[in-house]
């Protein structure tokens, strides 16, 4: 039984039709890769799931509950969390400020509601530890961290919303080789906590190494739904580009 179920989603912007009936399902603790060329409709699909865009047709349910009528905030409250590629971090603020941005814990001092810095710091550290992420001093501004470390802050932030589904947009795209592994480890960590993950990525090696299933979008359709362990690189590349001679491209991707 899947946690998130997306079926028959259609969307057009004016005369441009972007999605033509997309199906996608994610179970608890499942990592699903969403791949496809630029313009295949990945971002549009994700924005429809999070509620940023309205679908023209189709259905989205989360644990059986219809999501389409709900606002982005309501969907987030139901457990749909998205981590954008730009991470939406306030770079000059520290880790705790970012993790609790907009929901800072407060305490009363002389009748004034002041931000409880100590609790914030403690909870932030706990969240980082729970993730197994490695960060330098968490009182430093997030902008001074590496891309991978910033990614862990964004993931820790997402986790504080107690999500059931986390959608990650190109989390490894801008990372150094060494850091890719730690971010993939974080994704496995989410999976082990029973969270469903949708991983949007162009880096097929990363997708192959961390996902259970791979859904390929091409020209607004989910053209393939592959079990990762039974799939080879040529299968994916072929599905992305739509057949033809893909040996060279697949070999290139396999090299990483």
């Amino acid at each position, binding site marked *: 039984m899947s946690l998130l179920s997306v079926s028959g989603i259609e969307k057009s912007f004016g005369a441009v039709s972007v999605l033509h009936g997309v199906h996608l399902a994610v179970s608890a603790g499942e990592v699903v890769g969403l791949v496809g060329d630029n313009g295949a409709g990945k971002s549009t699909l994700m924005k429809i799931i999070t509620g940023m865009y309205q679908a023209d047709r189709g259905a989205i349910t989360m644990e059986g509950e219809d999501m389409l009528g709900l606002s982005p*905030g309501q969907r987030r409250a139901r457990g749909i969390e998205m981590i954008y590629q*730009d991470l*939406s*971090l*306030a*770079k*000059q*603020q520290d880790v705790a*400020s*970012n993790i609790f*941005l*907009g*929901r*800072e814990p*407060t305490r009363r001092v002389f009748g*004034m*509601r*002041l*931000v409880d*810095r100590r609790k914030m710091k403690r909870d932030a550290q706990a969240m980082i530890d729970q993730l197994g992420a490695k960060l330098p001093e968490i*009182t430093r501004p997030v902008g*001074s961290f590496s891309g991978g470390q910033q990614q862990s802050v964004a993931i820790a932030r997402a986790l504080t919303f107690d999500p059931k589904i986390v959608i990650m947009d190109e989390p490894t795209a801008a990372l150094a080789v060494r850091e890719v592994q730690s971010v993939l480890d974080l994704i496995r960590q989410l999976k082990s906590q029973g969270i469903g993950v949708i991983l949007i990525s162009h880096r097929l090696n990363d997708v192959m190494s961390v996902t259970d299933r791979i859904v390929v979008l091409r020209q607004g359709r989910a053209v393939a739904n592959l079990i990762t362990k039974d799939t080879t690189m040529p299968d994916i590349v072929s599905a992305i580009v739509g057949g033809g001679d893909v040996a060279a491209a697949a070999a290139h991707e396999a090299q990483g």
Partner: protein
Amino acid sequence: MAPQHMSRAPSLWARLQAKSIEQLHIRLESIVVLIGLATIMAFLSPFFLSVSNFMNILLATSTIGVLAIAATFVLSSGGLDLSIGSVLGLSGVVGAAVAVNLGMPTPIAVLATIGAGAAAGFVNGWVITRGFVPAFIVTLGMLGIARGLALVISDGRVIYGLPEWMLFLGQGRPFGIPMPVIILVLVAVIMHVILAYTRYGRHTLAIGDNENAARTSGINVDFHRLTLYTLSGGLAGVAGLLFATRINSGDPTAGITYELTAITAAIIGGTNLFGGRGSILGTIIGALIMGVLQNGLNLLAVQSYYQQMAIGGVLVLAVFIDQFQQRQETKV
């Protein structure tokens, strides 16, 4: 595997820097500049090191200090308020007109002074957030409008003769400490707590840092901006009150180019011109630096024209140094 880029143990200076920013929200460099500047002035002028001169500096700093606090809030939210000098002038004239021309009691005149400032700030914020006009343009326009309105209300003349209780705010000296200094300290403490320790303050910095992140975190960015510009205007009103009561008159030309000094003080104190970082204690240090600079130049009998040039130069220099440091930090 051990990370390749093990950093060296940070120097004492670096650790002190980190501590002072984390605990006090002050940049260590600004304190060094303040002490250095005061030392130089003490050598150059025999009159500099005296209690009465320090009181003079504090007194002169009080008006600019309150304005600089306003500038700190707006700048650290990624905004800009160029109208604070003119709004200072307008609110002083409104207060004097209410007290003298209308003969209202002091509390009403005081409220009118601060209220006039807040109203001007509210208009700024309203046009910026609802009309999508850049803050630079709106507040530059208000710089002209508020100044013009002050001249219209006062008919271009200085309004003399404030009531005694009002004068106490500018000239009273309980326990030998000038009232404006007491008011500056009060305002600074309250605003420091708000900026550093309340959600309002944290959100102000977050909006200046990454407006999008703030928005997706559920912060009502437009409303927050509106309140910030209103606050800025209100504080300019407080500064106008201090100014008017100190000189016992509503002067429509009061506060010309004060926005320059106030923004300079905020930036010297470590406020990021582009938002995301700001501290009231730092700003007070910055305002004191400007105060010591002006006071020292006065003692050295340097013409005020040159002082204007010095302030402008310091502003550009401060931003230059800040940008230089940021480029160094982001260089890997």
